């Protein structure tokens, strides 16, 4: 149907002496919402950081739009169309809301997402654009971080721990934005500890357990029991599900 946007093959990543990502492979198609779920320490963040170029691979391969990303610096990957919204938001503390967004706009490429567009998407922002990061709630900060990432006009938006530290109602509101983002032509890769949200919104779910793939498939084809076992382990050997 659509092209392969991101291809991860046999990826092995060490974090010091610890093997954080152990032989992980998956593919993300254009227009997909891809969710990677797993418990704390399962290797999800390391995986995302390696894809973004912040962390060195030990073995394996990451390619984006058919192009091998080996040796390509993080900011170059952003220019190619891949943007990571990091865990913990990580807004620039000494910059205002608008300035945070402007840094995103300065990187990446030009496209549908402009400052005006982001202000449309989050209509509470314009009034508070001269305020600083610490003056915003967790949910608002997450929105700003999302906005900053979108302003690079990525083809693939990766979000690490979207719901971390946020109240349920805020999480719902943010997740409601995802389909709208995809409607603008952006594919989304979400990493989540919160299984229900991840599974609810995704076209494809990939579960990590201690760095290894424990489950992979479309949500409608997976039972809650399967997911639970894959998430927590419980002494079972890894199961790989279907892959489109």
């Amino acid at each position, binding site marked *: 149907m659509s092209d392969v946007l991101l291809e991860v093959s046999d990826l092995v990543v060490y974090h010091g002496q610890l093997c954080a990502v152990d032989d992980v492979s998956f593919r993300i198609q254009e227009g997909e919402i891809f969710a990677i779920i797993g418990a704390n320490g399962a290797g999800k963040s390391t995986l995302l950081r390696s894809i973004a170029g912040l962390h060195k691979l030990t073995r394996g391969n990451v390619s984006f739009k058919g192009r091998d990303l080996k040796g390509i610096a993080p*900011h170059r990957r952003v220019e190619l169309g891949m*943007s990571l919204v990091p865990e913990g938001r990580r807004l620039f503390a000494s910059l205002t809301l608008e300035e945070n967004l402007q840094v995103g706009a300065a990187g990446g490429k030009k496209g549908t997402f402009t400052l005006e567009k982001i202000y449309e998407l989050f209509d509470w922002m314009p009034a508070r654009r001269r305020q600083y990061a610490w003056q915003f709630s967790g949910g608002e900060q997450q929105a700003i971080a999302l906005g900053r990432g979108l302003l690079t006009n990525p083809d693939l938006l990766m979000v690490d721990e979207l719901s971390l530290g946020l109240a349920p109602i805020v999480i719902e509101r943010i997740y409601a934005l995802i389909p709208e983002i995809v409607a603008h032509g952006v594919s989304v890769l979400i990493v989540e500890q919160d299984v229900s949200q991840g599974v609810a919104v995704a076209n494809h779910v990939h579960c990590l357990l201690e760095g290894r793939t424990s489950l992979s498939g479309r949500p409608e084809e997976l039972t809650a029991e399967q997911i639970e076992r894959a998430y927590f382990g419980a002494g079972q050997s890894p199961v790989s599900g279907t892959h489109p």
Partner: protein
Amino acid sequence: MIWLNILVEGALIGGFYALFACGLSLMFGVMKVINLAHGDLAVVAAYIAVFLVPHLHVPEVLSFLVVVPVFGLIGYLVQRTLIQKSIDRDPFTTLLVTFGLSVVIENLLLEGYSANAQTVNIGSLGYNSWHPGSIFYLSYVSLVVLASSVVILGALQLFLSKTSLGRQIRAVSDDQEAAQLSGTNYRHIFGVAAAIAFATVALAGIAYGMTTQFSPTSGGVNLLFAFEAVVIGGIGSLWGTLVGGISLGIAQQLGAHFNPQYPTLFGNILFLIVLAVRPQGLFGKKTALL
């Protein structure tokens, strides 16, 4: 009246210290690099102004027009090569490498130009001064240097707050990784910061050469003052550096008032007190120490 004189003299020299130190503050704020060769760069600029620029048929008083941009370029190149390599290792290495550079530069100058004192020739401008109310003797050069410091610091502050590049520099200082993820080429940004640092310190060096005599080892003593100004004022704040410089200048003038051997001592004591009581400086962010 004596006290007013101390304040004024302190402010004048403080302005110079601030110009000298802003590059240091920038390099530390942006890339966490403490450039121990910073002072020697200023001296090199002064030497170039005296010995090399005349070959270009440019009068020494205008030498900064040539030297400053060249130093900016050199700063960018040195940062992208040598300093970046030591940053990639660890902060320890950076400290050692810049210290090594400092020693190498000083001794190269000693070999090339001997230990004799030099000065930048500015003709009659150097001899004239202003006598407001017949109380102060404010040399024109010092006033021009102070004015330039304020203008340049102001311009730098504007650059950092209003331009895209300035924003990126501030972003990189806050969170280098997050900046990378937003598409900022942090190594390029480091280069720009270094270019600004080198350019401003070159200007400061030439200004220094216009007001005082200098020799190969002048860099060391001025580096000490620059550090003190930055620490007193607070890392990461340009206006803090100005305030720090002026505070230092005043402390030193106070010391000189008591005993000709004391100016540096009083400055050192102020520095040590600030370090003990409020290590982040007057305007600095609390996390700057780590």
